[in-house]
């Protein structure tokens, strides 16, 4: 088991580094030039300023030297300075990450808590109204464009009905709590500030529903399909022949098997939520990594892009590892010697 873990971790670190290399090459071998996006037209016509800019950001060095600098910096816990914000990339990421973690975790929990039971019930009551409802929800969830859903939600619940607060993490009139974890829902109660907590919670409702929609659809669909698959297996017929009650056939025999594909999907979906908040954050003015990613990409802010790639790849590799480990825990057939 330890050996397995060690070899998996080695591969994981290699994968992360390889990912940064790929992004590095893509970012540097394509014709885009940060000089233009950063300096503006006038300065870009001044050769001295361009040379100074290039030197300042190490853009005049050969490709491999630049990657080497990135790597050595990385081992010292330094991701370089963002061209856009002029601050260390690590600081930027530390500042924006908590808002994203908060939003995507709430969205993921929402998708899981609603989607899993919905999928199970849909499979148990196949071809009844509840099954049709579950399938319709999941269909709309996976088919509706996130940005459009966000618009509709804002237009209806904020614009027309005024049930929900508008974009942003908290209201303009509310002071943010002192930063401890950076996550409002944790920092506010720690500071004893329950008004802020409720304000932050209210602001989370619409974005988390919007973000959860497609994951919810996927989880419902996968759970339903996995349950139906499990229910068609021989051991279910055996369980019926044993005289078990329906409930224990469904929940005791079918569900543990149906959970296996859902775990894989769930892990991947959480990783996607953590890294795929770009659209939702930009509409809800959410101060998270998604918006930072978008801005960095548009500005060709290489150090920031490299830093984000590193984080994203690390999240994926880590989540994959966790999925494999929980798989080993859930399925005795893959548990190691």
């Amino acid at each position, binding site marked *: 088991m330890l050996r397995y873990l060690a070899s998996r971790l080695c591969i994981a670190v290699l994968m992360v580094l390889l990912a940064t290399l790929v992004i590095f090459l893509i970012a540097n071998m*394509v014709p885009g030039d940060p000089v233009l996006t950063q300096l503006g037209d006038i300065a870009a016509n001044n050769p001295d300023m361009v040379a100074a800019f290039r030197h300042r950001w190490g853009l005049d060095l050969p490709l491999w030297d630049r990657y080497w600098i990135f790597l050595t910096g990385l081992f010292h816990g330094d991701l370089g300075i963002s061209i856009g914000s002029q601050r260390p990339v690590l600081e930027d990421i530390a500042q924006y990450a908590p808002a994203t973690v908060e939003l995507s975790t709430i969205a993921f929990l929402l998708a899981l808590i609603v989607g899993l039971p919905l999928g199970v019930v849909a499979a148990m009551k196949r071809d009844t109204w509840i099954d049709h409802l579950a399938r319709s929800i999941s269909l709309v969830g996976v088919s509706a464009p996130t*940005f459009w859903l966000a618009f509709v939600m804002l237009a209806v619940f904020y614009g027309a009905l005024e049930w929900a607060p508008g974009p942003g993490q908290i209201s303009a009139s509310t002071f943010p709590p002192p930063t401890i974890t950076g996550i409002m829902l944790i920092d506010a109660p720690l500071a004893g500030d329950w008004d802020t907590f409720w304000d932050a919670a209210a602001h989370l409702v619409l974005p988390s529903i919007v973000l959860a929609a497609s994951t919810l659809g996927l989880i419902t669909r996968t759970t339903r399909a996995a349950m139906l698959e499990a229910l068609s297996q021989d051991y279910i017929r055996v369980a019926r022949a044993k005289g078990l009650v329906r409930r224990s056939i469904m929940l005791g025999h079918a569900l543990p098997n149906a959970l296996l594909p859902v775990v894989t999907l769930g892990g991947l979906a959480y990783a996607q939520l953590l890294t795929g908040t770009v*659209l939702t954050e930009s509409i809800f003015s959410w101060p998270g990594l998604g918006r930072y990613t978008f801005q960095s990409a548009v500005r060709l802010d290489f150090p920031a892009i490299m830093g984000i790639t590193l984080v994203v790849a690390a999240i994926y590799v880590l989540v994959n590892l966790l999925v494999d480990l929980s798989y080993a825990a859930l399925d005795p057939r893959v548990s190691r010697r």
Partner: protein
Amino acid sequence: MSGVETALLAATVESGTGARRRRWLRRYGLAALGGVVIAIWAIAAILAPWIAPYPPDVVNVAGRLLPPSDLHWLGTDVLGRDVFTRVLYGARTSLAVGFIVVLLGALFGTLLGAIAAYIRGWAEEALMRATDLVFCFPPIILAMAIAAALGIGTRNTVIAMLVVWWPKFARLARSLVIGQRSAEYVAAAQAIGFGPSHILFRQIIPNAVGPLVVLVTLDLGNAILVFAGLSFLGLGVVPPTAEWGSMVSEGRELVNQWWVATFPGLAILSVVIGFNFVGDGIRDWLDPHARRR
């Protein structure tokens, strides 16, 4: 009447044409509906220049932000352009991008996955690691980086999407080929003396096409969604080209002029649902398990 006679009578009724039609509808009705929706959009896309009531990008500041009416069925946008016209034109971009990305991605991914799975060994291992690597980047981030680096435009966005699109097909093709590889008809072909390329392309791949077609169909909707998302962020089409994602973006602040953003969004929704219905239908049709019922 005995039980047997009752059952036979019931079976005769059940096998009547009306009952057969009902059964067909229950099973493939949604797929047919999806097919009709997609056919309508495809026709709209092809015939847009002839059936659209207005030119798609002539600015008319006087007639801006008009609500839906007899003249402008879906209203007009900020620049006074007819929303209905632009939704029709938008179908051209969305469907074309969807088909190009998915078909090219599927072709490339399938070939790579199938060949790697058939060769096995290092080729298979290298391919799997490469797909892992691409899976490490969420499509939207990589596409954003590439679009930003290559410059904004439909062609570059398509290239960016292709980079992240092939791995899922490579993986599916690989697992399908692995599943078929151990089938005895493959050993039989080998025993006859057929070479590897004949066995892979003429014998194995025809048997793996079904699930690939399902994935292609379901994925068309997905590609349209991602492209619309990129356009929404300003990384897709260049204005003033009509495209559904960028149209929603143009109307995102206009909560009171809801028609500007709502209709292009509904267009996306209907196309994606259409592809989902068709894909599910094909899957059911291919699955003997579901077919029996």
